[in-house]
Each structure stands twice: as structure tokens, then as C-alpha cells.
């Protein structure tokens, strides 16, 4: 009985140690996932937010991206935008905040692949955007490329993934989100 008790205690201690280790030294996948979730929260804004809060939110957004970031958003029938650098992202975020009343962005699925050197990574994610006053959410798959810079994971490239593609059909654009 005493041996079993000691064995159980030892297993519990090891499990606790492993848990503490993962909390103190999280894996790059976990860090990136957390960072992207924060990014989604920063992009979102509610209809009753004040102007100063909206401005701060748009400016904070820049810190998730590298200085030479390249963003290509191409949602069929919605928006097509190519942005270069943090400045254009901040401008686009400010434009979106003035164009729509509220925005709720979520990344329900984030699949992270870290490169062998653990200095760069790719995240394939599903973006779900709910615009206030619009009934249906916009769902789009996107690919984020991240680079570790000064200990922080920064987004260097954002691309749209065409889950369903049609070669011979180019839908007209009806921008519900005006990014510039």
C-alpha cells in the first residue's frame, strides 16, 4: 500500500513538474497561437467604443507586424487589398473603424507549423468576421507567416487561401469593409 501511494505521489509530482515547465516555458506553437488570438482581439471593436479607444486599438495593431510586412487580403465578392508596412496597416485599421460600426474577429482554428530552426513559422487559420448590422459572418482561410524578432513573434506576411476556387469567375467587388 505504501509503495502504491509513493508511486502515485511520484507520478503526480512528475505531472505537476511537466505542467509547470509548459507554463513557464511554453512551446512556440502555443506562444504563436496566443499571439494570434490577441491579434484577433485587437482587430475587433465594439459599436459603443470611444474614438480614443478605437485610435489606440488601431495603433496597437501595428506591433503585431514586422516593419516590412506584406498583407494580401482577397475575399471573393468582398474586399481586395494589398498593404505594405506597419503604417498602411494602421491606416487601414483606422479606415475600417470609421467605415463600420463594429467588428468581431475570431480565429476559431489555428494550425501552426514551426520551422526547424524555431525562428520562423507558418499559421494556417480560419478567420471569422462578424460585422455589426450584417447577419452572416465572413469566413475565410488565411495563411500567416511569422518571424521571431527580438524574442517576439511578428507577422511578416498575410495571404488569402482560396479554399474553393474558380478560375473563370472573377466576382465584382462590393467592399463591406473599406480598408483605405
Amino acid at each position, binding site marked *: 500500500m505504501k509503495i502504491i501511494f509513493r508511486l502515485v505521489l511520484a507520478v503526480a509530482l512528475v505531472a505537476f513538474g511537466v505542467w509547470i515547465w509548459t507554463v513557464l516555458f511554453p512551446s512556440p506553437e502555443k506562444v504563436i497561437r496566443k499571439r494570434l488570438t490577441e491579434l484577433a482581439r485587437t482587430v475587433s471593436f465594439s459599436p459603443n467604443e470611444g474614438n480614443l479607444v478605437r485610435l489606440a486599438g488601431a495603433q496597437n495593431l501595428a506591433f503585431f507586424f514586422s516593419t516590412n510586412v506584406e498583407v494580401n487580403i482577397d475575399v471573393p465578392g468582398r474586399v481586395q487589398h494589398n498593404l505594405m508596412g506597419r503604417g498602411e496597416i494602421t491606416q487601414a485599421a483606422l479606415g475600417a473603424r470609421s467605415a463600420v460600426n463594429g467588428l468581431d474577429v475570431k480565429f476559431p482554428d489555428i494550425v501552426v507549423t514551426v520551422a526547424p530552426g524555431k525562428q520562423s513559422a507558418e499559421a494556417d487559420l480560419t478567420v471569422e468576421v462578424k460585422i455589426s448590422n450584417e447577419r452572416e459572418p465572413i469566413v*475565410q482561410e488565411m495563411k500567416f507567416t511569422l518571424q521571431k524578432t527580438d524574442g517576439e513573434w511578428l507577422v511578416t506576411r498575410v495571404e488569402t487561401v482560396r479554399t*474553393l476556387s474558380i478560375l473563370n469567375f472573377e466576382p465584382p467587388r462590393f467592399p463591406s469593409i473599406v480598408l483605405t
Partner: protein
Amino acid sequence: MPAQNQTAQRVQPPQLPNWLRIALVGRNPKVTLARIGILVVTCFIIFKFALFPIRVEGISMLPTYRDGSVHLVSRTAYLWHEPQCGDVVSIRLAGPHVMYMKRVIGLPGETVAFVNGQVLIDGQVLDEPYEKLACDWNLPPEKLGPNEYFVVGDNRSMPPEWHTFGKASRDRIIGKLLL
């Protein structure tokens, strides 16, 4: 003595009526526990690997599937055969939490076109009894690759630019809608 009686009353466990005890834990608690365990494991295996529930969000599958309705997707449906024309399938995006739900209308190697709202497969009109809303789409022919399926929603009353449809590679089709 009265103090001893009081102590004895406190220690005595509360007695449940027999019918309630049987209703809660069964005649043999060990057997009940084993049954619960088997049920939990079976449900876990079924809902993890074979079937998964989905909730429809949006109007692109109207009138067949309504916004907010709950259905089951079979992950094992395409283990032994490939998706067929007319099947309603779930198509994954980055992960398992959000999926597209569409109907297969074109199979690998076929050419799909829309002419005045009618679907043409290799030049022949496709019979679509599930499509009940008026459609006036015109789209040029699209040749499907060896591993591609053409999927579209049942509600084509909206303009095509508001509808998500097109070619999906086979590896993105993860299951067939059952109910």
C-alpha cells in the same frame, strides 16, 4: 448519555429511499459504473472519429438546410467510395471548428458551367430536384482536375458573388451530411 445519543445520530449516514437509490445508481452500482464507462468511451469514439454534429450558419443551403439547424456529418462515408454527385459534404478550412457545407455537382474530370441558372455537366443539363429557388447564374465552363470536385450551395437565388462555391480538392472533403 444524552450526549452519546446525539453523537450517534450525527454519524449515521442519511438513508435514501430504496426506489431512489435504484433510480440513481441501479441495483448493482458496479455494473452501473461499468455501463457508464462503456457509454462514455463509445460516445467519445463515435463523435470523435465517425460522426460529428454541426450547426448550420447562413442561408446558402436554403431551402434544404435552414440557418441554425443541427445535423450530423459522417466521417466514414468516403472510406470505401468517393463523393457522388448530389451529396452534401462538409469541407474543411484550416481546422475542424468552421467548415463549409455544400452540395457536390461536379466530379473529377467533368466540365461544369451555369447557363441561365441551369447547371451543365459536360454540356448536359443536370437534374437538381433540391434546387427550388430561382437562379439566373451564367458562368463559363470550368474543367475539373483529377482530384477536384465542384461544390455549390442549394440557394442560388442570391448573386454568385455573394455565394461561396467552386472547386474543392478531395483532401478538403471530410465527410457527408447524414441528417
